[in-house]
Every structure is written in structure tokens, then in C-alpha cells.
């Protein structure tokens, strides 16, 4: 697919590939076993990422970001997808929602995030509100010039504990022609505020070196000036970036699948049974053919979505199709790779079992496969009034 890339994109890919191979991959197995990335290593990755200009590559150049277009970012995410999120997470792509910062918020939140001095949690999901975000219970109530926040969030992930949360909370009910609708507002809430407790979440089977946290808010008081964007417009603000997030997950799936396919080919060509390489059996070789073909298709869906985003014409279903297909594709590729490796595919000495576990998450986060199908089918049926 190189023919689709510009010279700059080709160079970017080879630089990131070298960065991933030299700085991240050597630590994969160890950090997966540990269940976290040691502090010093994390700091070292951040430092190198800053030097290379990979940190905050998604944010505009004017504020110190990398200023990459969506197609280049997709290629970047694809390369990072080949390693684990625990390590990749340190080469942070701050939430683009922070671009809505205004006034003092710019110096306090946006710019320190670009410089890796501060880091944010993106806190949307709750124990009772996963796919169904509107069942959110966390609420903020006005008290003079302040807001009082109560509720809890879970599955809020970050490689390290963040410095503040971009928190989504209910701030009112709006009457619409289709009935009452909760109004959601985004707040910038510093950790360390009274009543804001953070607990480490349970261990996860996938992306073990990455962390999830549970955040709970017990009468946490924040000034009105901590509202990000407009009151009641939190989800509109998040919407565009949630959509792009799906494209980044899809791109990462393609990278992971490429790595798995490479491992599968190597094994199929060298492992011998019944006097010949197992790749000579169609049971194996046809698997490889399907894996490669599906990977190509997923790559094209990702490029389609990213390029349309660059042109400002990406639709909900472009991102949803890329996320759905790529996440399911990498699941099949990972499963087939384990099968081709036989018992060795499940042994911790090789990276296959880890990639297989990691790939499982991609069908769940940033919108499950079912939710992506829901988005796609809605875009098909809505014009017909259904």
C-alpha cells in the first residue's frame, strides 16, 4: 500500500517503526508480566517521544503539537498498534477535546498536556453506563459560582495516574420533541480535589501493562470556569473525537494484524510436520491467504476513513465500518496465528499469546462491535424513516 503514501508519510512510518522496535518492543514481555510500566521506563519513553516530535503529534503545530493530518496519524497509530498499549500510551496523543480550552484553561490544561507536563483521564464510562452512555448517573449541580459533582466512573484508562479528568456529568434535563433528554457537560477536574478518589481497577486480560482506574466523586466542588466548552454540550464536543478514536483503534488493529501475520508466515514456512513445512498444507496456507486479504481490506477501510476526515467529509459509518471490520479482522488473524503455532501459540515465551489477548480488547473499547453495527445500520435505515 506504500504507493498511497507521500514521501513524508513513508519517512514517518520508518521512523516510528524504528522507535517502536528500539524503544518499546524490548520491554513488551517484561511489562506485560509486571502488569505495569516502571516509572523510570515510562519517563524515558516520554522523553524520547518528545525529542522525536511524536508526542502530541495529533495537536496543531501552533500550540507545539505535531500537526499531522489524519491519514498520517492513522499510519502512526498503525505502527504503534504493533506493540502494547501500556508502552504506546506513553507516546501520548492528548484528547483533541482539549482544543476547546479557553482563557486560563489553555495555560492550565491544554499546553501542559502538549509538553507532557500534565496528563488527562477521559472519563465517560460508568459501571451502569457503557454502551448506553445516556444512562449516565454522575451529575453536577450548580451551587452559586461552583458546581458540585457526585457519581463514579470506571474503566478509565491511562498508562499512569493522570493529573486531571475530562469528566462527563449530567447537568440538567432538556425537553425535546422526542421527550426529555439528559444534558451532559464536560468538566476539567483536578485529581487531589477534596472528595475525588481514585482507585486502581482490576487486572485486565488484555493490554496488561496498561491501567484502568475507578474514579469516584463525593461532593467535589469545582468553579464554573472548569467547564470545557459549553454547558450541556459535552457530548457534541466529544462526538467528533470519539469518531476519530475509532479510526485510530482500527489503524492499530491493522498494525497488530500485520505483526501477527508476519509471525504466522515465519512459523508456517519453518515448522515441519509430516516431513514438510506446515505452510504446504492448505489448512495452513489458505488461512494465511485469508488473513492477508482481510488485513488489506481493513487497511483500505482505515485509509478511506482517515482521508475522508482530512477532506472534512467523513461520516459516522466510515469510522464505524473501519473499527468494526479491523477489530474483528485482528481477532480472526490472532486466533488463526495461535492455531498455526499450535501449542507454542499459547506459551508465554512467544509474543503470539499476548497479541491474541490484546486483540480481544479491540472489539470492546471505543464502542463494541455491536454498537458499530448499530451506527452503520442506523445510517442505512434512517433515510428510509426506520
Amino acid at each position, binding site marked *: 500500500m*506504500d504507493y498511497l503514501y507521500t*514521501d*513524508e508519510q*513513508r*519517512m*514517518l512510518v*520508518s*521512523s516510528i517503526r*524504528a*522507535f517502536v522496535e528500539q524503544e518499546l518492543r524490548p520491554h513488551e514481555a517484561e511489562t506485560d508480566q509486571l502488569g505495569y510500566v516502571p516509572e523510570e521506563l515510562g519517563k524515558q519513553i516520554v522523553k524520547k517521544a518528545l*525529542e*522525536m*516530535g*511524536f508526542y502530541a*503529534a495529533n495537536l496543531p503545530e501552533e500550540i507545539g503539537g*505535531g*500537526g*499531522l493530518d489524519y491519514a498520517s496519524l492513522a499510519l502512526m497509530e498503525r505502527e504503534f498498534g504493533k506493540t502494547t498499549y501500556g508502552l504506546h500510551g506513553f507516546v501520548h496523543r492528548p484528547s483533541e477535546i482539549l482544543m476547546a480550552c479557553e482563557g486560563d484553561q489553555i495555560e492550565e490544561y491544554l499546553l501542559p498536556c502538549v509538553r507532557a507536563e500534565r496528563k488527562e483521564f477521559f472519563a465517560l464510562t460508568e459501571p451502569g453506563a457503557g454502551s448506553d452512555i445516556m444512562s449516565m448517573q454522575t451529575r453536577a449541580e450548580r451551587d452559586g459560582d461552583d458546581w458540585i459533582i457526585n457519581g463514579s466512573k470506571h474503566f478509565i484508562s491511562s498508562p499512569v495516574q493522570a493529573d486531571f479528568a475530562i469528566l462527563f456529568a449530567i447537568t440538567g434535563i432538556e425537553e425535546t420533541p422526542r421527550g426529555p433528554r439528559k444534558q451532559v457537560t464536560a468538566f476539567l477536574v483536578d485529581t487531589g480535589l477534596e472528595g475525588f478518589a481514585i482507585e486502581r481497577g482490576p487486572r485486565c486480560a488484555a493490554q496488561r501493562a496498561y491501567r484502568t482506574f475507578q474514579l469516584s466523586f463525593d461532593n467535589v466542588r469545582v468553579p464554573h470556569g472548569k467547564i470545557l466548552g459549553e454547558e450541556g454540550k459535552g457530548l457534541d464536543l466529544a462526538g467528533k473525537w470519539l469518531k476519530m478514536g475509532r479510526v485510530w483503534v482500527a489503524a492499530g488493529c491493522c498494525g497488530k494484524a500485520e505483526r501477527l501475520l508476519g509471525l504466522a508466515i515465519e512459523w508456517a514456512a519453518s515448522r515441519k510436520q509430516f516431513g514438510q513445512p506446515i505452510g504446504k498444507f492448505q489448512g495452513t496456507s489458505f488461512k494465511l491467504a485469508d488473513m492477508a486479504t482481510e488485513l488489506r481490506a481493513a487497511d483500505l477501510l482505515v485509509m478511506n476513513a482517515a482521508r475522508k476526515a482530512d477532506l472534512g467529509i467523513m461520516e459516522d459509518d466510515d469510522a464505524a465500518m473501519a473499527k468494526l471490520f479491523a477489530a474483528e479482522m485482528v481477532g480472526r488473524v490472532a486466533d488463526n496465528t495461535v492455531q498455526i503455532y499450535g501449542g507454542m501459540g499459547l506459551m508465554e515465551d512467544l509474543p503470539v499469546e499476548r497479541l491474541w489477548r490484546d486483540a480481544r480488547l479491540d472489539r470492546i473499547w471505543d464502542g463494541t462491535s455491536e454498537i458499530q453495527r448499530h451506527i452503520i445500520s442506523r445510517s442505512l435505515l434512517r433515510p428510509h424513516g426506520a
Partner: protein
Amino acid sequence: MKVLIAVKRVIDFNVKIRVKSDNSGIETANVKMSMNPFDEIAVEEAIRLKEAGTADELVAVSIGTAQSSETIRTALAMGADRGILVETDAELQPLAVAKLLKAIVDKENPGMVVVGKQAIDDDANQTGQMLAALLGWPQGTFASKLEPADGTATLVREVDDGLQTIQVKLPAVISTDLRLNEPRYASLPNIMKAKKKPIDTTTPDELGVDVTPRLETINVVEPPVREAGEIVADAAQLIDKLKNEAKVI
């Protein structure tokens, strides 16, 4: 001091090389191409000379098809200042490349030329030496350490029986060995800056160089497959096998 670096576009070192079915050469269609790794070392060394204040301008030259400009861009993204592409579709052999580089050197008058000791495609290991001869300049080949000082350069060379330290007068041609440095990968800001750096294009005709091959390739074949070894029980059995089976002693 101006430093000229020669960079060649070759099949990526990760690619498994395949011989064409008609044995006329190796398969290059649809194969990933990259900068020759020894040339990356040359570019890195030149950048370090610039960072140390010894060099002030780095010019990257590539000779080959139009796509060789990608290789020049990579050198520019690493830190070279400008590029020269000698564009030709002709088959190039070391003597022709050395002559073309000489023509560029005559125009550019660099204080040093840094080249990779060999390119990983045909491993000829000739161009640097031929260029030095054509220019009548000293040559410091297989450098694993390079320290220029006033009008000279001291280098450590990797030779068969160890390390040899020599001093050459500048201008000179230096060829790089594997352990000279570890090349950097380009940072995002430098990749973006490379887009704006100039690449001049010229041709062998414009440089007045005849690139007609002097060697003819008759047949290209895969190296024979190595047969599996055999573990022997003891020295006596080894000697017996060498004597009676392999018949080498």
C-alpha cells in the same frame, strides 16, 4: 567544511532476496527499497560532524532512477541540507558511479566525501576507492572512528587482524564501517522540514560521463542450500569421518 555524502537506494535489508526465474538478475519489482545501511552510517557521521561544528554544509547525492529522490529525502530528514539526484535508468556499475561522483565533487568542491564501504545489493566495495583514485585524493576506508582536525582526519579502520589508526590529509574520501555510529531515525519536525529542502536533478549526459557497463552479467543463481551438519561422538570419530567420508585429511 562542506561534506558530500553518497546515498544509494537498495533493496531493504529485511527483504528476502529472490533470483528472477530467467536467472538474469534478482527480483526488484514490488520489493521494499531503503537507503543502503552503510550510507545511513555515512549520513549520521556527517550530521555529527556538523553538530560538532566541523562541517557546515551537508550535500546528499544519489544516483539512479527518479525514485532515488526518496533516498535523498531520507538523508534530508535525518539532517542533510540539500540533495543532488543524478537521474538515470541505466544499469550502474561502481566505476560509472565513481566517475559521476567525481563530476559532482569537481562542481561542489567539498572538503570530504563520506560513502558507505559497500552497498548491500552487490557488496562490491569499490566505489569509494575508485572515487579517491579518480580524484587523486587520499582515502580512509572502513572507518570505525573518525576525527577530523586542522586539514587532516584521523580514523580507526577495521582490518582483518585488528584496528589500524591512520591519518589522511583533507580533502579525502572516507568509507564507513558498521561500528562507526548508530544512525538516528528522523524526528517528525525534521521530516516536515525535509520537504522544503532543495534537491537538484542532473543526468550523466549533463555531467559528461559515459556510464556504459564494463561488466556483463551472464547468469545469476541462488547460493547452494547448506546441508545440515552432523554431531559426532568424539574426536576419533571426527577424524575418521574427515579422512574416510569427507576425504579432506
